């Protein structure tokens, strides 16, 4: 019990700090590295939820594949630091942070004290079985049609990426 709380607090603090770092770093490559750290902590949080397969996929797909793609693009573009235009966009920044705060307040209120707080719906972890077996069974029986459709999305994305980066198109 206590161990769970301690683990959650550490991972949650790391997740929030690394997310803040992603948003505030000037250099894109260090933002990327903090995003990788954020994905790792999310994998840890999935483990505290007993969703092992999700944790593995999180690290493999996000921290592995997607972030490597982002780092490649940053290297290709040879981006420098974002020059500080903070004095020009200060009103825009403050307005957007204020809007984000309002949205966050509404969402947190809805989750904790709204008409049906989440804890009245779900009290404790019922499913301690987040293994690949459980996920696979659901994926290949009930949800086999969405699973097939997703392959079409991937095909369209692969073709689209090739077409978009082709130099002389028609």
């Amino acid at each position, binding site marked *: 019990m206590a161990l769970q709380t301690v683990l959650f607090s550490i991972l949650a603090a790391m997740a929030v700090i690394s997310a803040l770092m992603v*948003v505030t770093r000037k250099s894109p490559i260090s933002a*990327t590295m903090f995003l990788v750290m954020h994905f790792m902590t999310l994998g840890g*949080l999935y483990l505290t939820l*007993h969703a092992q397969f999700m944790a593995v996929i999180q690290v493999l797909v996000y921290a592995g594949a997607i972030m490597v*793609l*982002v780092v490649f693009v940053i290297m290709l573009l040879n981006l420098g630091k974002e020059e500080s235009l903070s004095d020009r966009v200060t009103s825009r920044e403050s307005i957007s942070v204020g809007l984000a705060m309002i949205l966050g307040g509404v969402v947190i209120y809805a989750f904790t004290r709204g008409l049906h707080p989440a804890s009245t719906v779900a009290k404790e972890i*019922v499913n301690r079985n987040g293994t690949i077996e459980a996920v696979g069974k*659901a994926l290949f029986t009930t949800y086999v049609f969405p699973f097939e459709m997703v392959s079409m*999305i991937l095909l369209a994305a692969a073709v689209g990426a090739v077409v978009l980066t082709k130099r002389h198109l028609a």
Partner: protein
Amino acid sequence: MLSLPIEYYLVLSAVVFLIGMAGVLTRRNAIIIFMCIELMLNSVNLTLVAFSQYMGDMAGQILVLLVMTVAAAEAAVGLAIVLSLFRNKQTVYLDEINLLKW
């Protein structure tokens, strides 16, 4: 064995979501905005996995798998768009890109 209240996970994901949203609204670099969108997608994934495990329904985790696939597709296409933008305009800063501004 007692487990944590689900609100812990929900509030954490709401906080991460609004950090990502503030990032999308304030940053100018297209790649960093793209990463902030990934941040928001991931915070929603955390909500989905938490509800899936607390209510004993696998549908949430299947949905997370689908979201991850769509995010991967979005990464490929989005970065291709950024690359071709950079090739045409030599910049990735969104307020210098005004092709559609009339």
